[in-house]
């Protein structure tokens, strides 16, 4: 098995992507869809939480997209949560299983997981910033014993914009993590906290010496 990055670096040009097949598409919010992609059989993604790939829609263009699946859950396939905002993302939102896209990467620096070991974690996400953070959260949950307390703060504009609702439900049910959700434009059904995600900061109990705080935010 070769890694995707080795394949990309060995290509005649660094700009040439590797073909990947869309195997599943799920609508996760009004804005985002979750795409499950498969690389050619002899390649694995081999990424770190927080890294991104360059996604090519052939005939349209290329865009950087965060990898939202954790390394612990990206064996035969990996996931990209994509908000429909530009030329490339508009077209991929129309694509279904079986279609071929181009992938290069993974690029960027991942979260320094090794430094997190044995420490308490405060993980903060706003809006579609949850896409890269979910990769880290699921990695942490899959090797939960390696870390101390885990607190997650997640804020969005309106309740309809929460991504990965099924997983959020699972996270709330777990006793070994704390999840705090907040919205700044609540609808009638919302009976929890209102405000920006930073509203929660004064209420979070941290012991500064042992906590690390990776955070991600859109843009």
């Amino acid at each position, binding site marked *: 098995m070769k890694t995707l990055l080795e394949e990309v670096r060995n290509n*005649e040009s660094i700009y040439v992507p590797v*073909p990947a097949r869309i195997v599943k598409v799920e609508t996760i919010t009004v804005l985002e869809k979750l795409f499950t992609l498969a690389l050619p059989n002899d390649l694995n993604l081999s990424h770190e939480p927080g890294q991104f790939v360059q996604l090519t829609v052939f005939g349209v*263009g290329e865009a950087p997209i965060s990898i939202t699946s954790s390394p612990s859950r990206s064996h035969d396939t990996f996931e990209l949560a994509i908000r429909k905002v530009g030329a490339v993302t508009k077209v991929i939102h129309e694509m279904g299983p079986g279609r071929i896209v181009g992938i290069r990467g993974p690029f960027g620096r991942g979260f320094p997981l090794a430094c997190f070991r044995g420490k308490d974690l405060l993980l903060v996400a706003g809006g579609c910033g949850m896409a890269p953070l979910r990769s880290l959260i699921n990695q942490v949950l899959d090797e939960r014993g390696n870390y101390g307390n885990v607190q997650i703060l997640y804020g969005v504009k309106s309740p309809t914009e929460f991504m990965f609702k099924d997983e959020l439900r699972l996270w709330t049910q777990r006793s070994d993590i704390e999840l705090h959700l907040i919205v700044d434009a609540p609808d009638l059904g919302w009976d929890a906290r209102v405000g920006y995600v930073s509203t929660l900061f004064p209420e979070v109990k941290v012991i500064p010496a042992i906590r690390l705080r990776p955070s991600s935010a859109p843009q």
Partner: protein
Amino acid sequence: MQQTDRARRTPHSTIRPLRTAEDASSFHVLSKAKFGDWVTWLTQRYRVFGPKPADGQYSYGIVKTAADMDFTRAQKPLSPKKCLLPSRELLYTYETNGERVQAVIDSVPTVILGVDTCDQHAIRLFDRIFSHGFTEQHYQVRRSNTLIVGLECLRPCGEQSFCHSMGTSSPATEVFDLHLVDLGDEYCFEIGSIRGRQLVAEFRGMLAASHTDSQRRDAVLHHKLDSFKHRLDCDVTELPDLVGNASKSSHWQELGEICLACGMCTQVCPTCYCFNIEDHVDLRLTQGSRYRTWDSCQISEFATVAGGHNFREKRAARQRHRFMRKAKYQYDANGMVGCVGCGRCATACLAHISPIKTFNELWRRKKVAERLQVGTRP
């Protein structure tokens, strides 16, 4: 006194005299009468670019004979940047179903003739930029198949040039394969690489430089310095800190108010390389091509991201970014100031924004601020 001090601190500003036996073997002379034969000999073996007259100006283009070229020292509005990083370059072709993805790499053996000293330093910076991190084959393959034949500038090429202040009025030894000095009726060839030596050794008619030739060359280079003036009020080594500490200067607002955001400064700059990626498909939507095209940080859309937010919406912010890139960021990342003092941007700017005026204005304000600070001390 101050001038001497600056010259000492400015890299590449001294003449390298031709003294030792090893040096002597590095120098050859060719009469101008035979120079055309050498160019023809080159064109039979290489794709040759050279400065050609075009619309009353000069531009690097494909040369078939020496008569196509003009080696007079008028400034060329565009540097030979486009020979190494074309303004529009095909990166790869594909079928829109994702099959038959085929890289397009240009590996044609190439010679660029008549590269000015400032542009040699710009290529020196490009070589550093494009060798960082991931291998960028499109530049590297083209560059490794390209020989640089420099030409010594014997007088300043334009009103706006300030190469001597930037330490780029002498050739970049890591860059040129051959470097020519005009001795009147002959060119003196300095060999800078093994490949350059082959261009001299394999052509009949080159003569090893004699002691007299070396004296003539030294004299020409010595007199050259009389016409090159220092125009920067500070030393080039002060620029990274000067501009880096001026991020809150009101001068950027002043430049933003007159800037037309046309992007011409970045197009003509020999060290600007920012690019955009464009896809083109055929009418049946089955065949596609991906191109790299020159972009410009001065265009309002440059820093606009998906969702519509623009990180540098104001022209002032874009001008500041441009000068930060030149004076500070390139120095931090690559150990070289990103401006080589060619002055092309100042010549091209319809609003008369010039790097030398900008650097000197920031220096003046810094000095004024320092004097005020001294004055307020108890």
